[in-house]
């Protein structure tokens, strides 16, 4: 079965600093989703990457997909306290058809110090 490994598991940065979170899949990626979760709350969709080399941005957050490496990276520029939370990558594990199901990485906990 497919697994998603995120690194680092946790991160503490000073406000204003840049940071990168990685998500590596054990199998071919057919689309990669990034979500953010605040402690004790639901997940908020950030963006979805579908094709190798694709890059998307939402405010100060940029995500890229490297299909060959079966990996995606999430980069935050000039971090702010509002960026704090748990970042989760997700992928549809089905190889044959669209199912809508998602498996998730274990999450990366980000703290931003003012």
């Amino acid at each position, binding site marked *: 079965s497919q697994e998603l490994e995120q690194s680092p598991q946790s991160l503490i940065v000073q406000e204003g600093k840049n940071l990168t979170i990685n998500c590596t899949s054990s199998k071919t990626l057919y689309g990669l989703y990034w*979500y953010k979760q605040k402690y004790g709350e*639901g997940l908020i969709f950030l963006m979805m990457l*579908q094709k190798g080399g694709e890059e998307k941005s939402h405010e100060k957050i940029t995500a890229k997909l490297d299909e060959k490496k079966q990996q995606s990276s999430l980069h935050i520029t000039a971090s702010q306290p509002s960026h704090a939370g748990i970042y989760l990558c997700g992928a549809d594990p089905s190889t044959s058809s*669209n199912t*809508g199901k998602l498996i998730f990485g*274990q*999450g990366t906990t980000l703290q931003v110090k003012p």
Partner: protein
Amino acid sequence: DAMVIQNPRYQVTQFGKPVTLSCSQTLNHNVMYWYQQKSSQAPKLLFHYYDKDFNNEADTPDNFQSRRPNTSFCFLDIRSPGLGDAAMYLCATSRGAWRRPEDEQFFGPGTRLTVL
């Protein structure tokens, strides 16, 4: 605002006492999902409905059941909760089940279940 609502936000039950968690949506989405998230772990899909079609994950225990009486509502029933079932239960919806941004999953705030 259109959203995914989960009730209650916190549920305490006794070992072996049946419990039902509720999810409702105003998005008119076709697909509804139930995930279990244990402390410091990734959400794990239990089952999902595409319209009225129920899809159970192979490793979801028989103790967990679900009902979707109409488009808006979906329920998670835990017939005999054990201590290992204590977790956050997340409901999500999506318009469709295709791998595209338009079919992103919208999550509710979750119900935190405690089993005594």
